[in-house]
């Protein structure tokens, strides 16, 4: 919950500093971005496994620009990020395997938001998840949806096809 001035009332004229605090909370709590990808062409084929930062495949080719206003602190100047993500996919071989949808924040940071262990092939499944990211500095980010696959062993055969949808949103949560 955002920290707001507690002195507002009929006998207190808000100061500029107090109103600046209110404005900052409003700015952050109205800061929501997202995207929805459907008719995904070409199909995203996942033919390798996740290992560290490798094995991720872009769903959307153009990143979504998002500005975070709050800083990385845990105090009242900071903010967190709520992320919702969902997507569907299927396996063509080698079950069980886990499809993971992530939101990429920078060159090396993939926030894993939604995953699903799939036990059968050629049957579409949905993965949906929510998470909170903390301690990101204020600034401009290029957010991009990715998909990856973990198996006990290769071959890796996951598919997000043109009948699937991958969607997400991110919302800033002021402290």
């Amino acid at each position, binding site marked *: 919950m955002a920290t707001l001035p507690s002195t507002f009332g009929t006998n207190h004229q808000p100061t*500029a*500093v107090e*109103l*600046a605090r*209110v*404005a*900052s909370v*409003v*700015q952050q*709590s*109205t800061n*929501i*971005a*997202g*995207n*929805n990808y*459907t008719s995904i062409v070409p199909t995203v084929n996942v033919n390798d496994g996740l290992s560290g930062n490798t094995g991720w495949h872009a769903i959307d080719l153009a990143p979504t620009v998002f500005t975070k206003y709050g800083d990385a602190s845990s105090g009242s100047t900071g903010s967190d990020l709520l992320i*919702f993500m*969902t997507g*569907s996919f*299927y396996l063509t071989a080698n079950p069980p395997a886990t499809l993971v949808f992530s939101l990429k924040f920078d060159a090396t940071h993939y926030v894993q938001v939604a995953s699903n262990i799939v036990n059968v092939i*050629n*049957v*579409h499944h*949905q993965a*949906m998840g929510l998470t909170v990211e903390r301690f990101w500095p204020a600034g401009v980010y290029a957010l991009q949806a990715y998909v990856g696959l973990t198996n006990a062993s290769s071959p890796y055969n996951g598919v997000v*096809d043109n*009948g*699937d*949808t991958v*969607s*997400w*949103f991110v919302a800033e949560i002021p402290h």
Partner: protein
Amino acid sequence: MSATISALLAGRAPDAATMATLLKAITRITNIGVLALNGTASLSTGSNTYVDIAGGSITWTKQGSAAESDVLIIGAYSGYVSTTNVWCAGAAGFTGPVTFDHYWGSMYINLASSHNMLAGCRIIRATDSGALAAGTYTVKARAKLLTTATLTIDTNDTASIVVVELPK
């Protein structure tokens, strides 16, 4: 919002217009509608057109014009289909100053008579087809199928729509 915020963040005393803009933003971000249905719907369609998921609707009023605010929709439903390999889609159906089915997601349901779930979200912007003007809307959960089949959302399934106004 940005000019208003900049003025206040700079520590300047607000004027009435600035405060009005700030309050308008608060009004809009707290403008959230939720439709939650426990289904008994059975939808037969192969015409690739949306039909209602029966069970109810909500009334929701958008405060800002299409240029002044966007709308975040989150949708989900579970159910089963009567034949194999049916492409199913979901939408939030708006009826009001603008009448439009706003798609939120789709997926092939490959097995017949096996329950599945679809979910998705989307931000409706001023540049989108069916951009939402200010005014009061009836919002329904809607679904469509690409191939001829029956989609059943039974008494153990749910269909949900969340609508959130996003001030600029």
